[in-house]
């Protein structure tokens, strides 16, 4: 067994009903933290004789195990994978394991992020040790209690399938019988984690806990929250970014049957009604004069011009060797510019948030990736202490980074404060598309030099784009050096002696935000497409060139090789068909993809995508496969379908008719190949996205002989 010192954060205190109640103090959280001092909400509600040795789990007397999931379930499978970490170490019976979203509380901060936020593909890798320790603590208590009950030495007992088993006699005591005894024992000073050969669930997989409710209509999403006496709110906002309400006339809106309240907000006007239809009808009758934005967003043409112009003003973000000199000396130089547009998240569930502000405090039902931030935000708006704010997280109908923003929560709390009855704010799809925090548009100017043998000796990648970090926190970016905007570019994995990466921050007055895989989604596209242009200029095969250049990158090289071999790289294809390959490391995982396309007239059809992934130790293999499949679909929508275009100070798109998503009949065959690894877990939700668009673009290049330099891919584009 692997011996792990128990962290010093477990403290005991006596609780109600004879059960053991623990407060948690996690490393990295100061003792002065006000919220830290309050008991963890789960334990506050502890039924008598249950065992709850820490904030993450409870064993009830019927033997069922409840795992509190500190991350937001938005499709990536954390209800299952994080519960597996606990259940594995406990020896729980998986069929008796339930999962619930943990409330907002510092005890549930992700150790990889020091806050309770679900993002950066960090759930499994962040909680991998702490949740196993939480489960192992329960196992230790239960095994001690079980050994005492059976009057045998603890060393002769183990926990499996929800019972403590005496190995020599095969006598079993179910967990449920032992909870009261176990709760009276002192906590272990150290716990033992299972060794790899003892694992029953991790690496083998377990059925998703959220599938049955999600196919039966029982799963509760933000949109579905119902409270007695609840009203429905809808907010009219300007279609132009940065505008606020100058004056408004709500007389006609008030006359709509069912409209109860009109609530002015800084950036819009809320109509609060008995139902959604009445709220929308009221909205349609509002007359609002808008205060123009101080810096209106430009039109599409001007935006691209400004981005291109900014390329002359980059600051250096990586500088190996002397790229300028190496370019001058090169036997051959090539250059290209790439344009990548704004994109929307377009989660299937538009933003929704329910707030009940009452005499005792404030309760929120917020489908959010950042419950702790939401809690502090609600405290600020209501003026209540943070301990009186309770955040419930329903299932998220998609996240992808959109719900790292809490603009919709802020609106809902402001409205609830004004109307003083439970209120559910619902956004329309039009609201969602027009008021997103978009994946930034970017332009990329690439230059490279080849030596006389065709080997790349110099690489320059200059990027101009709006900065997400600067938008969220303007003081966080010093001297225009935003690392997030250049991720995937500064981490170019190829052994090229002279590399220079530059960045120019451009504020276009368009709200930008984290979009599945963030900077990698753009920078890897430009870099991986340009590498194919280099290969073409050197007369080299794109796969073998990559393989050779991945010196000292064994994990990336391995997935590249695996994708190439499983993707039949190098075998003949019919006319008009092409194969492309791309690879990237992101979020501590490695993914390579081979895409096969057919070009028919001016349309590109993707027939097959072969994906190889090394995400370190795999907790739930089927979830990794599902996330890779989903990343392929996400990437294909961005590669082939629409874009967000600027128009009249806002965006041109309104709904799925002009912002189409990939549909079933456009879905290629997808094969996912997993690399077995003993390395620590890497991210899974995002790393499948970055290689997809360049793999497809490179396949189109192979099929047509014309490089793709703009997304979405349009064959008519002049390059």
């Amino acid at each position, binding site marked *: 067994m692997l011996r792990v010192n128990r962290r010093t954060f477990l403290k005991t205190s006596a609780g109600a009903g004879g059960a053991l109640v623990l407060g948690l103090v996690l490393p990295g959280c100061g003792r002065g933290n006000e919220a830290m001092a309050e008991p963890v909400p789960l334990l506050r509600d502890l039924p008598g004789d249950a065992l709850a040795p820490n904030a993450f789990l409870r064993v009830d007397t019927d033997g069922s195990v409840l795992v509190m999931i500190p991350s937001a379930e938005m*499709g990536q499978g954390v209800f299952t994978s994080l519960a597996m970490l606990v259940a594995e170490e406990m020896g729980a019976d998986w069929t008796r394991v339930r999962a619930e979203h943990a409330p907002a509380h510092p005890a549930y901060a992700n150790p990889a992020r020091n806050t309770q936020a679900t993002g950066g593909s960090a759930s499994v890798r962040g909680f991998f040790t702490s949740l196993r320790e939480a489960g192992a603590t329960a196992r230790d208590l239960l095994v001690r209690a079980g050994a005492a009950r059976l009057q045998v030495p603890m060393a002769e007992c183990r926990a499996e399938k929800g019972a403590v088993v005496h190995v020599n006699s095969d006598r079993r005591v179910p967990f449920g019988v032992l909870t009261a005894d176990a709760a009276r024992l002192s906590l272990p000073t150290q716990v033992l984690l299972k060794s790899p050969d003892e694992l029953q669930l991790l690496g083998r997989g377990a*059925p998703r806990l959220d599938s049955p409710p999600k*196919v039966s209509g029982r*799963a509760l999403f933000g949109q579905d929250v119902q409270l007695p006496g609840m009203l429905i709110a809808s907010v009219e906002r300007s279609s132009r970014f940065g505008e606020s309400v100058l004056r408004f006339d709500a007389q006609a809106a008030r006359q709509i049957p069912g409209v109860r309240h009109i609530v002015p907000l800084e950036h819009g006007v809320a109509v609060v009604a008995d139902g959604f239809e009445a709220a929308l009808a009221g909205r349609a009758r509002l007359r609002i004069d808008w205060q123009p934005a101080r810096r209106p967003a430009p039109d599409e043409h001007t935006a691209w011009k400004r981005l291109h112009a900014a390329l002359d003003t980059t600051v250096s973000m990586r500088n190996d060797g002397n790229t300028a000199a190496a370019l001058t000396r090169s036997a051959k130089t090539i250059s290209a510019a790439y344009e990548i547009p704004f994109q929307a998240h377009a989660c*299937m569930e538009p933003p929704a948030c329910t707030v009940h502000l009452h005499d005792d405090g404030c309760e929120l039902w917020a489908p959010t990736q950042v419950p702790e931030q939401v809690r502090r935000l609600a405290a600020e708006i209501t003026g209540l202490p943070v301990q009186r704010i309770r955040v419930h997280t329903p299932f998220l109908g998609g996240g992808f980074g959109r719900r790292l923003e809490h603009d919709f929560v802020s609106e809902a709390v402001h409205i609830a404060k004004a109307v003083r009855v439970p209120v559910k704010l619902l956004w329309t799809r039009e609201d969602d598309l027009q008021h997103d925090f978009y994946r930034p548009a970017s332009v990329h100017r690439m230059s490279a030099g080849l030596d006389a043998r065709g080997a790349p000796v110099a690489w320059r990648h200059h990027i101009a784009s709006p900065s997400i970090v600067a938008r969220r926190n303007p003081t966080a970016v010093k001297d225009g050096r935003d690392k997030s905007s250049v991720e995937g570019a500064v981490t170019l994995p190829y052994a090229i002696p002279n590399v220079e990466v530059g960045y120019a921050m451009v504020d276009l007055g368009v709200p930008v935000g984290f979009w599945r895989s963030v900077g990698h989604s753009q920078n890897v596209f430009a870099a991986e497409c340009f590498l194919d242009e280099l290969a073409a200029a050197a007369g080299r095969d794109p796969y073998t060139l990559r393989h050779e250049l991945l010196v000292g990158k064994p994990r990336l090289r391995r997935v590249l090789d695996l994708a190439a071999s499983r993707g039949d790289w190098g075998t003949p294809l019919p006319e008009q068909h092409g194969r492309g390959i791309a690879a990237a490391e992101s979020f501590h995982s490695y993914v390579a993809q081979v895409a096969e396309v057919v070009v028919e007239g001016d349309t590109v059809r993707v027939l097959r995508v072969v994906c190889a992934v090394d995400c370190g130790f795999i907790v739930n293999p089927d979830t990794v496969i599902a996330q890779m499949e989903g990343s392929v679909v996400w990437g294909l929508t961005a590669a082939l379908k629409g874009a967000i275009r600027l128009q009249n100070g806002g965006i041109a798109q309104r709904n799925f008719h002009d912002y189409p998503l990939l549909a079933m009949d456009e879905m290629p065959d997808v094969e996912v190949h997993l690399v077995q690894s003993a390395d620590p877990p890497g991210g899974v939700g995002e790393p499948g996205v970055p290689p997809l668009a360049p793999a497809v673009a490179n396949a189109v290049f192979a099929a047509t002989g014309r490089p793709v330099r703009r997304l979405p891919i349009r064959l008519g584009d002049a390059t």
Partner: protein
Amino acid sequence: MVDLLVNGRRHTLDVSADANLLWVLRERLQLNGAKYGCGIAACGACTVLLEGEPIRACVTPVGAVEGRRIVTIEGLGGDHPVQLAWVAEEVPQCGFCQAGQVLAAVALLEKNPRPGEREINHAFRGHLCRCGTYPRIRRAVRRAAEWMVEPSRAARK
């Protein structure tokens, strides 16, 4: 007053005939399985069955479906072969669109017990999934088709 027949139950509701079916289901009947995704019949999240045919509740006035047999995801009961196949293939990710996807499959398989890829693509053309569960939907439809022909296999799943 409008009479609605939903999941085998008759409801007499004090709503106008042009009230929207989706919001009547959600707000008046507390049936939240059908989701609002777009409001323009472009995403399929609001799908319900009308006399066995999939329709988009978000653009359907209740007056147009008065007295006719409506089935929502809640009406399938949870152990319909399509639902079991969906679980067996671990189709859902975020799950928001899945009620519509499941009902699309139910309607397809009622009419066509052995749909090919072309028929599956056609039936799901208007059902968007941002999480990208399409490959698993295809597999689950095929599995459900087998189980509906040989129900004993579903029971042994």
